[in-house]
């Protein structure tokens, strides 16, 4: 069993995040609050309720080393929460947005965070010591539609975004005074803030969910047309692979290792994609158990039902009455999964554990370590 822990925290969860040692979880129960639960001897207890936003919270991220929580909401605001004693103290971040904020992520060095928004902009926020204030710099006029997801490259400079115009874009977010020149290894050193490094126009549908591989060599993002895209050599001449699958589209992706990707989405069951020795990506399997067989047999029965007309109904004996009821997912999650978060142990680049949350209000922790058939890809 790949799912090792299942917690029913709320009716419906929009997003969640863990602290550095995974003893506390923060999530939004589909309203304007953030609930923080802590593990006390095998029991999760509600510790704090962060109430400051006035619309649904769309993104949460918890920085591991500096222990700060950033939340963004449809009310166009963002707060950085800092723990002082037993209290969480919010600091308002002026995003200068006129539409809802949709997603947020801390950079790997945790000196910046990125916010994607419905205003077709991306905000890069950083702390200004002298003003004691989080300042945001905007990447404007590069997106044609809402920015649905952001992902930081491990080098702390590059930022990948996906948008409902179907494109995935990579930007440089070099900010003078915050980033140093040495950190820009491997990239052309003259890239300024907000410069579009590459625009990937692979999807002809909305794009959601983007993630970099641990080394930063590969980028994966998903389209709403049931496709997942893998891009190598992000730069002037990227190499792209499209993988189509027969199930419902994905919402979010996560690199578990350089050769394995987990995708979650409307099928309520995490999907495993992996690259073989030649670097060809393909769909491997569903991570959760699935009771019902694939829908292929369903169509088969229809065909045989139609052929039954040729050969006489009785021969095939297909029961023609009643429309078959929809398949239930039969997995751990009962509704769309919209968030996947890695559970990183220490400084290893390998992530074998991750957690997912969905509209059914469950937070599920998965471990791919005990899946023998997947060990090769780890």
């Amino acid at each position, binding site marked *: 069993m790949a799912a090792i822990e299942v917690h029913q925290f709320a009716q419906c969860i929009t997003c969640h995040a863990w602290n550095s040692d995974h003893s506390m979880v923060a999530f939004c129960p589909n309203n304007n609050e953030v609930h923080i639960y802590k593990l006390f001897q095998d029991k999760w207890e509600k510790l704090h309720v962060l109430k400051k936003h006035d619309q649904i919270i769309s993104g949460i991220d918890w920085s591991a080393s500096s222990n700060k929580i950033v939340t963004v909401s449809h009310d166009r605001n963002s707060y950085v929460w800092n723990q002082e004693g037993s209290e969480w103290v919010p600091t308002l971040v002026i995003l200068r947005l006129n539409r809802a904020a949709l997603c947020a992520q801390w950079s790997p060095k945790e000196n910046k965070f990125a916010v994607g928004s419905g205003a077709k902009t991306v905000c890069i926020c950083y702390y200004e010591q002298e003003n004691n204030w989080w300042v945001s710099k905007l990447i404007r006029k590069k997106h044609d539609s*809402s920015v649905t997801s952001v992902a930081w490259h491990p080098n702390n400079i590059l930022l990948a975004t996906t948008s409902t115009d179907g494109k995935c874009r990579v930007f440089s977010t070099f900010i003078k005074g915050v980033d140093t020149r040495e950190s820009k290894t491997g990239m052309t050193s003259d890239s300024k803030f907000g410069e579009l490094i590459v625009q990937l126009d692979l999807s002809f549908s909305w794009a959601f969910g983007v993630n970099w591989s641990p080394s930063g060599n590969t980028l994966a993002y998903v389209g709403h047309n049931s496709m997942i895209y893998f891009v190598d050599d992000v730069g002037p001449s990227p190499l792209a692979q499209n993988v189509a*699958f*027969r199930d419902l589209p994905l919402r979010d992706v996560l690199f578990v290792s350089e050769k394995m990707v987990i995708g979650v989405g409307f099928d309520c069951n995490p999907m495993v994609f992996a690259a073989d020795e030649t670097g060809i990506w393909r769909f491997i399997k569903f991570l959760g158990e699935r009771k019902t067989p694939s829908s292929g047999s369903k169509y088969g029965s229809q065909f045989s039902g139609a052929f039954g007309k040729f050969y006489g109904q009785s021969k095939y004996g297909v029961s023609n009455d009643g429309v078959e009821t*929809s398949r239930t997912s039969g997995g751990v999650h009962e509704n769309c999964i919209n968030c996947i978060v890695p559970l990183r142990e220490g400084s290893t680049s390998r992530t074998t554990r991750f957690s997912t949350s969905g509209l059914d209000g469950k937070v599920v922790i998965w471990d791919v370590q005990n899946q023998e058939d997947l060990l090769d890809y780890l």
Partner: protein
Amino acid sequence: MANTLRLYLTCIRNTLDAAMCLQNFPCQEVERHNKPEVELKYVYWDQPGTSAESCRIPYCSFIKKALNVFLTFVIVLYTCMFDCCTCIFIFFFLFIMQVLICRNEAEKCLIEASINSLRISLKVKQADELENILTKKFLRFLSMRAEAFQVLRRKPVQGYDISFLITNYHCEDMQKHKLIDFIVQFMEDIDKEISELKMSMNTRGRLVATEFLKQFM
């Protein structure tokens, strides 16, 4: 149940399954609004950056599912000419995603999908004037009580008898497969209901006529 009705409903079920991938999506045109995108009328269809492009659905998986059914339809069409089952797909890849599934001229189902909402419009079979008026009155009765049904639209789309509007909030509160089951069950029952109404109407008419004519005996 007739085999063709089963195929018609299966086609609708699979299309709904693929189209009902909805999520919370705040309006990117109007500040602090969150409305069903399928109900919004955008003027600037061909300008990039308007929500025109946000009205596509996962038609890759959808094509696979729907076309399988479509093929079955074609086979049925060839095998039994008397069962006129046709299925027309209308794709507006760039704009709003619409699928029209027709069983025959009188019975059809239009499915329109956007990022956070889905509209299903049904045209119910009306063989004669009586069925016409019964359907109209009955569905009007239902539409006036739309709150009780949650997913029912107060007013049907033009050219159709009844419409459902499913938003991401319905998908959060209710299970998706139950929602689809409800729609399909509704379609199954509505025909039965109408023919029952017609039968009782005829019976009553006959009774009234008998009673009325008794005085002349």
